[in-house]
């Protein structure tokens, strides 16, 4: 228990240091842009692929479960839409990004620690957490919501493709379902989730990387710990946000 509070304290102090005033704004801004490209453009491929497949699979499964003649087929589109917006796009994307972006953050910072590059920054008088961690957090909290928006669009498109080639639900019914009873709050919930998931991925993985000590083995362990803790915290935050907002 004491170790948990000690780690939590260290994590909070590291975050405080990360958001101290930068030595030179332009240098940090360039770093933020670089990280945004890495997180956003770098993850676009994997997010697109999983979104289309999950959207298609969700639609087929919902249609399968709604085989009663009493339920209109358009309901499949409605359920697929809400599931994609509220759960699949933000949460599954975040879990995938924890693996892709989180492990990269933890191993990059961890390698810098064990090869004394972080010491070199500190010797120069650079606030190492600010220079290394803040741009990654800013990149994740801005780019992950954008990726989630793309994921939602592609997930819904994936559902449409499934209708087009599957035949369980007609495309016309699917589109009718998509338009039926749309609540804008669901999009807000998805974006709030994406924002917090981005923060969780970047900050937890950066924390694990920053306090790495040892060599290559420990860098790998830090990356694994970063991904595992991020995934657990993403699921916990998912529950809390859902409970609070819906």
């Amino acid at each position, binding site marked *: 228990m004491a170790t948990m509070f000690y780690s939590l304290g260290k994590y909070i102090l590291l975050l405080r240091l990360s958001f101290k005033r930068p030595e030179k704004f332009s*240098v940090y801004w360039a770093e933020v842009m670089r990280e945004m490209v890495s997180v956003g453009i770098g993850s676009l491929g994997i997010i697109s692929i999983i979104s289309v497949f999950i959207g298609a699979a969700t639609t087929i499964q919902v249609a399968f479960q709604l085989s009663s003649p009493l339920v209109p087929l358009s309901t499949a589109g409605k359920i697929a839409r809400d599931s994609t917006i509220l759960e699949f796009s933000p949460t599954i994307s975040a879990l995938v990004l924890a693996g892709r972006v989180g492990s990269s953050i933890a191993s990059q910072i961890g390698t810098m620690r064990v090869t*004394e590059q972080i010491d070199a920054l500190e*010797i*120069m008088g650079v606030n190492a957490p600010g220079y290394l961690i803040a741009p990654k957090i800013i990149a994740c909290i801005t780019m992950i919501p954008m990726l989630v928006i793309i994921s939602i669009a592609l997930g819904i498109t994936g559902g449409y493709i499934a209708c087009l080639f599957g035949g369980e639900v007609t495309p016309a019914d699917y589109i009718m379902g998509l338009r039926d009873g749309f609540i804008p709050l669901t999009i807000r919930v998805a974006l709030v989730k994406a924002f917090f998931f981005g923060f969780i991925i970047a900050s937890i993985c950066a924390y694990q990387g920053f306090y790495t000590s040892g060599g290559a083995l420990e860098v790998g362990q830090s990356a694994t710990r970063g991904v595992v803790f991020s995934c657990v915290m993403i699921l916990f935050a998912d529950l809390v946000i859902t409970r609070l907002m819906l």
Partner: protein
Amino acid sequence: MIEIKDIYKTFGDNDVLKGISATFQTGKNNLIIGGSGSGKTTLLKCIVGLHEPTKGKVFFEDENFTDMDFTERVPIRTQIGMLFQNSALFDSMTVEQNIMFPLNLFTKQSLAEKRERANFCLERVNLQDKNKLYPAELSGGMKKRVGIARALSMQPKYLFVDEPNSGLDPKTSIVIDDLINDLTSEYNMTTIIVTHDMNSVMGIGENIIFLHQGQKWWEGSNKEIAHTDNKELNEFVFASKFMQAAKGKL
């Protein structure tokens, strides 16, 4: 001048440094030597502020570095250059970007001025035309020289060097030692070198501190080191057969 007073450093139950005091003179190569685990690197890290001493003070000129917070230390840190054991170059940056990095953060120089300074530093370490290479494309000796060039970029008053010869062949080691020696006198820097390489000790050791079991065991110059009757120091200096054979001629 750098002065350390009664430095102690403890990690858990392990007392690594036990009350070390010393003065490191300006314009001289100050060497910290000792066997593995004697506390050399820990002492260096305490001096530059990477470790906080458990007890004791570090003074840069007359300024109490130990009692300063991170922000107060920045003006002194911009006068510090450090060469790390593994060079610690930033992998994601080219040689030129590595050297320009501190200039980008702490000066208002134009890009042309920063490039000029980077070229000058690279020329000084005989690495012209290597600007666009990445650290992964350099040999060990070249990395060390880029590390020195980066350390020089801010025209430091203090140069710290951790194991400059580790992983280098004897010939390249001498090149690096000579470079550090030349730069120290040319820019009148206070240079502190941690090493256990006897070639460096005999070649450039103007002021040497020998650490043993976390304590300062001996202090002198390379001229005095071969004629001391300090048992532990003799065991360290004359550990190799080569040094034993050369003992009478030193």
